C-alpha cells in the first residue's frame, strides 16, 4: 500500500510520510488547493511538514492547485477518461485499495452530472485490514446460527473494517458459505481492474459500484448466495433490497450510521425493517477503545446478547 501511495503522491509530499511516519497509523491524506496538507494519523488530524507531523499550519507543506490535478491524474494511471463514472460518483478506487475522494467543479447537462473538472481537493483514504476486527460480531451473530445483522455506529467508528473482516471470516468458513459482497462504493473489497485489493474471503463474489437494488436482485438470481454483505444502508430503496433478500432466504449483514441501535428506528426507511424484525442482531460499535470497539450485541427485541 505504501507503494500505491508513492504512485499517487509527488516526491516532496511522499518523503516525510515514508521517512518519518508509521504507515499503519495513516488513515487519510487530505490535499486542498492552496492550503496545508493534512493527515489523519492515529485518528487525529495533523498538518504535514517536511519533518513529519505538525500542529502548526505555518510549518506545513502547501498543496498547489496544479498538484491536486496531478494527483488525480496519477491516481487514474494517466487515464482520466477511463474513470468518468467514478469521477461523477466523487471517488476513485486505485490499486492497493486506496480510495481517492475528489472535490471540484461539477459539469452538468440539465440535471445530469457529466463530469467533474477543476479539482479543488482530494482525500486519499487508506484502508487497513484488521484481521480479527469482527471476532465478537462473528461469535454472537454467525458462530452457531446465521442472523441477519445490522452493524450500527457513528461515522469513522470502524463499520467498514468490521464488515470486511466479517466477509473474510464467512467467506473462508468451512463448510463453505457462498458470500455475496455488494460493494456499492468499492470500499469493502476495493476492487481494481477486476481484482479485489483486500482479503474478503475465498468463497466471496463481489458486485462493485452498483446500486444495492440491482446487486441484490441480480446477485440472488445469478450467484445463489447464502449470505449478502453490504455497507451503509440508507433510505427506503436499500431497506427494500434487504427485505427482498430476507424473503429469498438469504442472510444479510449490513451497516448503518446511527449513534446506537436504539436510534436506528428513527432513521427514514428503517421502520419497516424494525417492525418486521428482519434483523435479529444489532451490533453497536464505537471509538471508546479505538475504532471498531464492540459496545454490545442486541437481539430483535433490543435485549443484550453481549454488552461491555
Amino acid at each position, binding site marked *: 500500500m505504501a507503494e500505491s501511495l508513492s504512485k499517487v503522491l509527488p516526491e516532496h509530499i511522499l518523503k516525510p510520510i515514508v521517512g518519518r511516519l508509521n504507515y499503519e497509523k495513516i488513515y487519510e491524506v487530505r490535499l486542498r488547493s492552496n492550503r496545508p496538507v493534512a493527515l489523519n494519523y492515529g485518528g487525529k488530524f495533523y498538518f504535514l511538514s517536511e519533518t513529519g507531523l505538525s500542529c502548526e499550519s505555518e510549518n506545513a507543506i502547501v498543496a498547489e492547485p496544479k498538484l491536486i490535478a496531478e494527483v488525480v*491524474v*496519477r491516481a*487514474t*494511471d*494517466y*487515464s*482520466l*477518461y*477511463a*474513470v*468518468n463514472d467514478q*469521477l461523477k460518483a466523487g471517488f476513485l478506487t486505485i490499486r492497493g485499495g486506496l480510495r481517492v475522494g475528489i472535490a471540484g467543479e461539477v459539469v452538468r447537462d440539465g440535471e445530469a452530472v*457529466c*463530469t467533474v*473538472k477543476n479539482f479543488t481537493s482530494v482525500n486519499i483514504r487508506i484502508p487497513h485490514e484488521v484481521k480479527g476486527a469482527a471476532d465478537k460480531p462473528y461469535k454472537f451473530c454467525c458462530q452457531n446460527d446465521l442472523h441477519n445483522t445490522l452493524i450500527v455506529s457513528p461515522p469513522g467508528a470502524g463499520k467498514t473494517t468490521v464488515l470486511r473482516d466479517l466477509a473474510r471470516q464467512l467467506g473462508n468458513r468451512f463448510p463453505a458459505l457462498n458470500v455475496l459482497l455488494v460493494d456499492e462504493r468499492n470500499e469493502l473489497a476495493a476492487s481494481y481492474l477486476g481484482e479485489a485489493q483486500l482479503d474478503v474471503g475465498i468463497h466471496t463474489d463481489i458486485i462493485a459500484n452498483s446500486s444495492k437494488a440491482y446487486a441484490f436482485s441480480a446477485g440472488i438470481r445469478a450467484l445463489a448466495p447464502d449470505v449478502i454483505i453490504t455497507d451503509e444502508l440508507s433510505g427506503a430503496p436499500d431497506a427494500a433490497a434487504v427485505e427482498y433478500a430476507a424473503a429469498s432466504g438469504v442472510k444479510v449483514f449490513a451497516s448503518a450510521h446511527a449513534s446506537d441501535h436504539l436510534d436506528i428506528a428513527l432513521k427514514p426507511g428503517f421502520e419497516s425493517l424494525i417492525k418486521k424484525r428482519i434483523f435479529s442482531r444489532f451490533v453497536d460499535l464505537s471509538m471508546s477503545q479505538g475504532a471498531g470497539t464492540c459496545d454490545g450485541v442486541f437481539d430483535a427485541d433490543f435485549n443484550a446478547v453481549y454488552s461491555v
Partner: protein
Amino acid sequence: MNCKLLIGCLFSFLKTFQRRTATIITKFLLVIIASAAGTFGGMYLSRRLKTRAGYYAALGAFINHISSEVKFRKNPIKIIVADFLADNETPLSKNLSEYADAPDPISAVLSRGVLKKTESAEVQKFLSSLGYLDSDTQVCELQLYKEKFAALSSDASEKSKKYAAMYVKLGFFLGLALGIVVL
C-alpha cells in the same frame, strides 16, 4: 634482325595495350561506383519518404484505435498503447515504446527519426495530452489531432508517390554524371 624488331614492336604494343586497358577498366569501375553510390543515396532518400508516409499512416490508425478505446472500453492508456504495439509493427512503434516506457507522459522523450523538428514536437504534444482529459473532451481532442495529422499524412503520402522512384533514378544519373565528369 627483322624478327627481333618485330618481336620488340609486338612487345611494346602489348605493353601499351595493357596499360590502356587497365586505365579503361579503372575508369569504368569508378563510373560504376559513382552510379551505385548515387543510387544508394537516392534509395535512402526514397526510403525516408516512404517511412514518413508510413509513420503518419500508423499515427492515424493509432488515433482511431485510441478513440474507440476511450469511447467504449475505457482501458488505461498504457494498456491501449501496449495492445497497439503488440498488433502493429510500424515506423511509429519506436516513439510509442519510448512513450510507454516513460514514468509519466510529460517526461517522455521521443526520438525524431524521419520527422522534422516541428512535426516531432507536435507528436510529443499529442502523446503528452493523452489521459489528462475526461472522456468527452479527450474524444474531441483526438478528433482535432486526427485532422491535423491527416493533412501531414496526405502530404507525406503524396511526396512519397511523386518523388520516391524519382530519387532513385536521379541518384543513379547524378552518380553516373559525376563519374563521367571526374573521368
